[in-house]
């Protein structure tokens, strides 16, 4: 596949790695906040390749896993209603709420459907006028333009049985939270390439400046990720601080203006709870006043749902790179992949689940 497979060339991978080994003299802690990048790192074993003095910490970048327990429980409650067809991206079906997941709702008779695109959910609404179709609009900035367009299309076509359950997260506030922590260890960031495809990277300039931390926009294939690491380490070794673009084939400084305009038309910033971390102010997007007719949280009576995060779980500290999974008293005991307490064990790409698996093998 063009623009994909050539970025997996093992000769170039080895070559960039050699360069990283050459220039990386000091110890550095880097973080990526992107589930897709974490997945790629795991899938290709990229962290095995890095020199020992470069530590890669996986940040809270998987929207599926950091969607708050509260919203997952609301989703389960709404999906259980007989008049509802609940449409969702595939990977949300597995996320555990306080009591089961969307699969268990389906097993109990709920009409839960997987869609690839939010426009497919609009189509379901069109084809089922007697049902209320609720779409679980999760994601970071990458997915917001798609989720926003579904509402715009529904409004344009006069479809009045389509609703969104919104759980959008924004990356910059999460970075602020991580970097402003007194115990922060992260010294360089790999910015999420597809978030930046939409938003550009202008938002990261003040962050780099304020915290004096290099930020490199990074892609997803092995060569892209290693290149992002190389560019970050190069800045760190030279004592430079800048926001650089390592994914220029799709990312520009200003991003996709059209998409940002539509996002602003449909959404505005609001506070958002992150599973395993807690509330991060202004880190979410919620529907604008003129789209509240589509807001499933308002239309369906789910205000009373208030689940509690496990008091034992230290996922928040792990997600910020402050602790290792083995520091947690629940790790491997009450908290295992089969019975996860927090985000980092919920996802098999999460630090805790990865540690659980790899400590077994070695």
């Amino acid at each position, binding site marked *: 596949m063009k623009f994909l497979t050539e970025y997996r060339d093992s000769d170039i991978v080895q070559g960039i790695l050699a360069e990283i080994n050459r220039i990386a003299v000091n110890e550095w802690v880097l973080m990526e906040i992107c589930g897709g990048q974490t997945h790629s790192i795991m899938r290709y074993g990229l962290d095995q390749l890095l020199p020992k003095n470069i530590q890669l910490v996986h940040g809270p970048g998987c929207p599926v896993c950091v969607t708050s327990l509260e919203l997952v429980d609301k989703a389960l409650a709404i999906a259980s209603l007989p008049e509802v067809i609940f449409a969702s991206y595939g990977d949300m079906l597995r996320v555990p709420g306080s009591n089961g997941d969307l699969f268990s709702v389906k097993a109990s008779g709920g009409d839960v459907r997987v869609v690839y695109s939010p426009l497919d959910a609009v189509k379901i609404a069109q084809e089922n006028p007697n049902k209320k179709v609720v779409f679980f609009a999760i994601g970071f900035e990458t997915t917001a333009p798609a989720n926003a367009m579904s509402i715009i299309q529904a409004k344009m076509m006069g479809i009045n049985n389509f609703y969104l359950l919104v759980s959008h997260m924004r990356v910059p506030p999460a970075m602020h939270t991580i970097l402003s922590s007194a115990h922060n260890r992260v010294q360089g960031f790999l910015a999420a390439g597809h978030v930046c495809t939409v938003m550009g990277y202008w938002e990261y300039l003040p962050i780099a400046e304020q915290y004096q931390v290099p930020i490199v926009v990074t892609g997803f294939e092995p060569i892209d990720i290693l290149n992002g690491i190389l560019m970050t380490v190069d800045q760190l070794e030279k004592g430079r601080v800048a926001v650089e673009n390592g994914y220029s084939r799709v990312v520009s400084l200003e991003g996709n203006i059209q998409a940002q305009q539509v996002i602003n038309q449909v959404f505005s910033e609001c506070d958002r709870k992150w599973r395993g971390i807690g509330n991060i102010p202004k880190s979410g997007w919620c529907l604008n006043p003129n789209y509240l007719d589509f807001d499933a949280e308002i239309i369906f009576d789910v205000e009373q749902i208030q689940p509690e995060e496990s008091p034992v779980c230290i996922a928040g500290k792990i997600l910020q790179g402050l602790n290792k999974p083995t520091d947690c008293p629940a790790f491997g005991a009450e908290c295992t992949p089969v019975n996860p307490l927090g985000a980092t064990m919920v996802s098999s790409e*999460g630090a805790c689940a990865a540690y659980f698996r790899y400590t077994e093998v070695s």
Partner: protein
Amino acid sequence: MMTENSQDIPGLVCPIPLAHDDKIVLGHGSGGKMSQDLIEKTFFPPLDNPILRAANDAGIAVIDLPQKNGEKVTCRLAVSTDSHVVNPLFFPGGDIGRLAICGTVNDIAMMGAQPSYLTASFILEEGLNIEILQNVLESMKDSAAESAIQIIAGDTKVVEKGKADSLYINTAGVGILPPGVNIHGANSQPGDIVILSGTIGDHGIAVLEARGDLGFKSSITSDIAPLNGIVQDILKITDQIHTMRDPTRGGLATSLNEVAKQSQVCIEIYETKIPINPAVLSACEMLGFDPLYIANEGKFLLIVPEVFVEPILQKMKSHRYGQDAVIIGRVRANPKGRVLMRTSIGTTRVVDILSGELLPRIC
């Protein structure tokens, strides 16, 4: 709340599925860890016996046939059963009828037995077009002829509208196991070579496309095929085959993990050697699937001592259903029970068993 420190960690998915213990969910039918857990925890306790526990593609029944002179002749029969619930009933490259015949034929063939007789029972949904049923039966007739088997017993039931997805078929089959053949999931040895008969992922992606929910189009066709012929050809070269498996639900990764666990060995495979149709790879990239977990219905794994590899490969490549046969890995002693993959960039990673339902991801 469960506190077990599970030895088997679900595959690279985001996020890890709950262990559903009180109700059946779709993940229980996916062929991966959840299916295995269901069998271990719910099915084995009341039905347990050593033959079932061997957990191969077919059960081996040992029958002592008394002779007139008072002596006994021992005969081994491979017995298997399979139910088919595919939706839609017809898809590019096959249909539920062909699947029903080949599924059971292949389970028996994977033991090294030659399937001879099958049964077929049908659950028909009220309202099903008889013409559809006739088309399915025609397909079964053709597949039976190709496999050289006969259907010698059958049953039909009709259920009310809404109680069956048009049509469910169960087939059961028997085949005689020749003396000296001991093909078993627990037989793989360090030093053995792993051969794969052809491209992976074709069936699963073809059916997904035919379902239409994910909206993609391609020319991918299912690979449903009876494998007893090619297996018999291989057995003429040697009967010292250690393990054979056809990686159906759960895919190549799941089958390899099962064997690694049963044989208590490590299986190492090489990513660059695994044959995949480029269109299947594109579909997987687009949806976020790993082709290692996608169902195949006309492919098999062969684990054999190195000395037999060349003649077997040659024989397979000259057969219609083995043209893309290739060595994909080898068996090592350690770490026991693990499947490792050498990636295209030279790193090594763990390949786990499929956890729950295979779902497209956005993450």
